[in-house]
């Protein structure tokens, strides 16, 4: 079996940030928040970039114990056909969205690469920026997506603890820890411009997870200097299956982690989704967080049918409309930006040259 990569276990790569995460007093949290805000303001100004997820399918071949899409869940399965994808995109466009994240479960015979590529093609006709959060792919497959206009992928390692990882992923292709760990590098090599990483917080000991995630981001930035890297901070949410996480990640710890990441990674996007409450999201916007999802529907077909009956991957916590969320950002003197990219930069030839 292949051994773990050096960056994953080299504590020196995160030694500067570790003390910030190990403190737990209110005064140090406040100081760290002020520093995170100052760093964010300098590099990103008062802009919050917005994106929205589009769930294409909830078919899945994996047995992740914490996920509502796992293949042993009994809820109905569904995938959008090309006409439905188009309708969803138009509904999203009507909300002003210009940046979409296409999601599926792990690869199945029903929902595989060809289906996903077709979805990217359609999305790229309607949205300036298209990213994908699906299953690990080969370099050639990533190149195929990049050529169709996919500029980013998101792939969470879920947990950086190899033993926990094995126990949490009961079957399916996702069981291979290292294969998943190397996925962002394959995507970049295939010409995908930016990769989003994250750990599903609550699965393993939080400080250790945070430090491994930080090392992962730094490793990617150093090794692939032209690639964009972003970090998300998903916490486990209630889902069908009723999984209870082993570790509690408090609001205060999550905030501390995000502040520390901003200090340790001053110029990358830090992302917060609608998994979090409106209170937490509004509070964190601009204090390190620079990119947020809006009006999220985590059911397949959720933008067109308000009462879509398929299972959701997790329960959304901040269920405000795009309008209401933007109003909250503006009240904080922040500018919600729906389009912060242009299709002019999705040139496939240029993408090949970069790879």
């Amino acid at each position, binding site marked *: 079996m292949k051994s773990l990569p050096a960056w994953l276990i080299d504590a020196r790569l995160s030694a500067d940030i570790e003390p910030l995460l190990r403190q737990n007093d209110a005064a140090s949290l406040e100081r760290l928040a002020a520093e995170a805000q100052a760093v964010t*303001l*300098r*590099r*990103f*100004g*008062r*802009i919050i970039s917005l994106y929205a997820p589009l769930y294409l399918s909830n078919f899945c071949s994996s047995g992740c114990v914490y996920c509502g899409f796992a293949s042993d869940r009994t809820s109905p399965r569904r995938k959008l056909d090309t006409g439905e994808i188009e309708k969803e995109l138009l509904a999203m*466009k009507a909300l*002003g969205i*210009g940046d979409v994240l296409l999601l599926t479960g792990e690869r199945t015979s029903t929902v595989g690469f060809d289906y996903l590529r077709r979805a990217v093609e359609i999305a790229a006709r309607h949205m300036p920026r298209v990213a994908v959060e699906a299953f690990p792919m080969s370099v050639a497959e990533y190149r195929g997506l990049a050529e169709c206009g996919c500029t980013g992928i998101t792939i969470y390692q879920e947990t950086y603890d190899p033993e926990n990882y094995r126990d949490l992923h009961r079957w399916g292709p996702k069981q291979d820890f290292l294969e998943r760990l190397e996925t962002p590098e394959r995507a970049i090599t295939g010409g995908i*411009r*930016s990769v989003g990483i994250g750990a599903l917080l609550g699965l393993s000991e939080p400080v250790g997870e945070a430090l491994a995630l930080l090392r992962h981001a730094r490793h990617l*930035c150093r090794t692939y*200097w*032209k*690639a*964009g*890297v972003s970090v998300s901070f998903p916490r486990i949410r209630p889902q069908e299956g009723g999984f209870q996480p082993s570790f509690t990640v408090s609001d205060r710890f999550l905030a501390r982690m995000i502040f520390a990441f901003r200090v340790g990674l001053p*110029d*990358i996007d830090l992302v917060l989704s609608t998994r979090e409450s409106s209170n937490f999201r509004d509070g964190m916007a601009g204090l390190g967080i620079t990119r947020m999802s809006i009006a999220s529907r985590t059911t397949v077909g959720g933008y067109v049918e308000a009462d879509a009956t398929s299972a959701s991957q997790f329960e959304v916590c901040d269920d405000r409309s795009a309008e209401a969320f933007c109003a909250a950002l*503006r009240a904080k*003197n*922040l*500018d919600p*930006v*729906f*389009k*912060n*990219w*242009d299709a*002019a*930069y999705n*040139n496939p*030839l*240029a993408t090949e*040259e*970069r790879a």
Partner: protein
Amino acid sequence: MDSLRLGTYTFSSRLILGTGKFSSTSAMLEALRASGTQLVTVALRRFNREQAEDDLFGPLSQIEGLTLMPNTSGAATAKEAVKAAHISRELSGSPFIKVEIHPNPHHLMPDPIETWEACKILAGEGFIVMPYIPADPVLAKRLEEVGCSSVMPLGSAIGSGQGLSTADMVKIIIRESSIPVIVDAGLRSPSEACAAMEMGCEAVLVNSAVAVARDPAAMARAFAKAVEAGFEARNAGIMPRSGTAVATSPLTSFLGAAS
């Protein structure tokens, strides 16, 4: 006051402003008006045909007497920048293009090689080409040779607020250049803009320092005054700095009186 000449255009204001990073479009517009700027840069990324509320181009084109200088921020290669320039010209109708190519999307440092490639092509196509560059005197001359209308060396990293940390190199660029030199990026306060003008810059480009100020309009006004003061001081003849005191017992008295 002399005008700033860029290509066939002349401007009485020597403060160029960026339009990103503001808390709202209205805060941005208010700052532009307060500054009296006549030239602003705007990213193609922020042009939104679909949604007027999210669009920067539309509101900017409503300000009378304002010339737009679209920029290629987001481009990682010369090819992408050229494509972005073509689209920007079509959308804005402006012949100006700020060539901004940063292959690393994090620190946003300009790529000198790709920038030179793109500028050569765009100058050949008749654009008024304004490249954002590292403060490299050789690159500045190479860009002048291919027909750029100005060079815009960085004072320090975008958004860093580190001021004129490249001052020594910018001075060489100014000394050698036959086209206007404009410091772009890194300026934190009006005094730094003033210093850049005193040094010999023809204009300065500011964005973050205005956009993130508590009162962007007041800060924009302050920058405008500082730029004017620096330019006027330079033309008035700044007293040379004397590096050493004059010894009371002259060191050269042994040479005797000059004959």
